[in-house]
């Protein structure tokens, strides 16, 4: 606590703290500042930074998720907290896959989801995700047929403890490996260079007879 905030929180910090404690949902800087009678957003940000540091060692943390702030219990206490009833709905495997595909590719159409999964996605799967508040309709893609496209919501970031989509586990690696590119693009890339898979092919030939 030596490097960070002063010993005693000032009025402004206390007000931001109380506001976030009392709020039923995460609040963006603007919302906090509006609630506190038009406090300068810069002051709110300072207060948030102080609070965030102040709570780091505590059983409750102040976290930012998708630009919105809230308090939550410290993750390392999860084993103690789980004792209470689990409030999380169990997602089917299909739903978790669809959610991941949307999160890593958003915005994405149903056809694109299906082309990755290789199977049709039942309407119920997307419904479940939208009902959970994690997925939303994000307009239409301006291609023939104008398909509806889907994206994740701020609640999705909240729920999975992501500060932003850049926090999605492994997203940088996946992107770097081209694994978020459509298959067609990957095909072109693969065929352009040395056809990497030819040497293996010879190997496979062997297996074929084996």
């Amino acid at each position: 606590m030596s490097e960070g905030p002063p010993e005693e929180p000032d009025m402004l910090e206390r007000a931001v703290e109380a506001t976030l404690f009392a709020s039923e949902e995460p609040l963006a800087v603007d919302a906090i500042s509006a609630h506190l009678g038009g406090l300068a957003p810069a002051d709110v940000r300072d207060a948030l930074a102080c609070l965030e540091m102040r709570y780091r060692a505590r059983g409750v943390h102040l976290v930012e998720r998708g630009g919105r702030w809230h308090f939550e219990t410290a993750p390392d206490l999860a084993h103690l907290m789980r004792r209470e009833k689990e409030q999380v709905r169990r997602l089917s495997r299909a739903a978790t896959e669809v959610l991941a595909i949307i999160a890593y590719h958003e915005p994405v159409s149903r056809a694109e989801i299906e082309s990755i999964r290789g199977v049709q996605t039942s309407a119920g799967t997307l419904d479940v995700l939208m009902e959970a508040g994690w997925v939303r309709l994000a307009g239409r893609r301006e291609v023939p047929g104008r398909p509806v496209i889907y994206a994740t919501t701020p609640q999705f970031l909240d729920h999975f403890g992501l500060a932003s989509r850049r926090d999605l586990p492994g997203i940088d690696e996946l992107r770097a490996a081209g694994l978020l590119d459509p298959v067609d693009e990957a095909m072109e890339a693969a065929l352009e260079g040395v056809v990497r898979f030819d040497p293996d092919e010879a190997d496979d030939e062997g297996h074929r007879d084996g």
Partner: protein
Amino acid sequence: MSQEAAPFLFAPDPARAEADALYLELDGWEGPLDLLLDLARRQKVDLLQISILALVDQYLAYIDQAGAMKLELAADYLVMAAWLAYLKSAMLLPKAAQEDPSPEELALRLQLRLQRLGAMREAAARLMGRDRIGRDVFVRGAPEGLRTDRKISWRSDIFALIQAYGQVKARAAPRIYHVANRPVMTLDSALERVSAMLGVTLEWMEIRDFLPPHATPELKRSALASSFVAALELTKRGRAELEQDGAFAPLRIRRLKDAAPA
């Protein structure tokens, strides 16, 4: 494959990787690519290194087995099986006989797709494994809640109040109608004027000439109406006659010869 009552509806089992049973998870919907991915995983190799032929063989064997067990298979499985059988035969043929796209390309495409699906399944698992609100971390159980009550503050003032009361009283009071003192020419004065002017000559005169020359438009209209009625009255009394060529044409009046001037 075990012999359960519902043979193709096995509950997801963590130990399933060890079991050699292939299964359809209808609830979680595991489809053809999913199944292929599973098969590829079992080869325990990089997806780009897997043997497509081995994969195809395993898949077709699964379909055969399912057929032998009289399992209903989703159309997706059968389409995939047909496509894989085609791919397998193409790969076994001499290269010269290949059409575009080559079987190698098809196999590559398949591998790329499997790789992408594999990446997403892994990402989904990592996502689900994060500290999730309501499972690992918890938000405040009973937040007081922030409320912005929109309160209307009504305004009025004493003048509006007493004015309103005045209007109410005025509305309720017995009504006394005052007719305003408009600039008018009464019938009597018109009769007087017209009689006097008729006395001057025996010629036809236009009724408009009887009107006061400097009157305001309001007074002129009133004078015209009164003078017309006066003219009718004088005609009725047999003291004058009226003449008009047509509707809205000038109305003329003259004194009857026998009649004495008014």
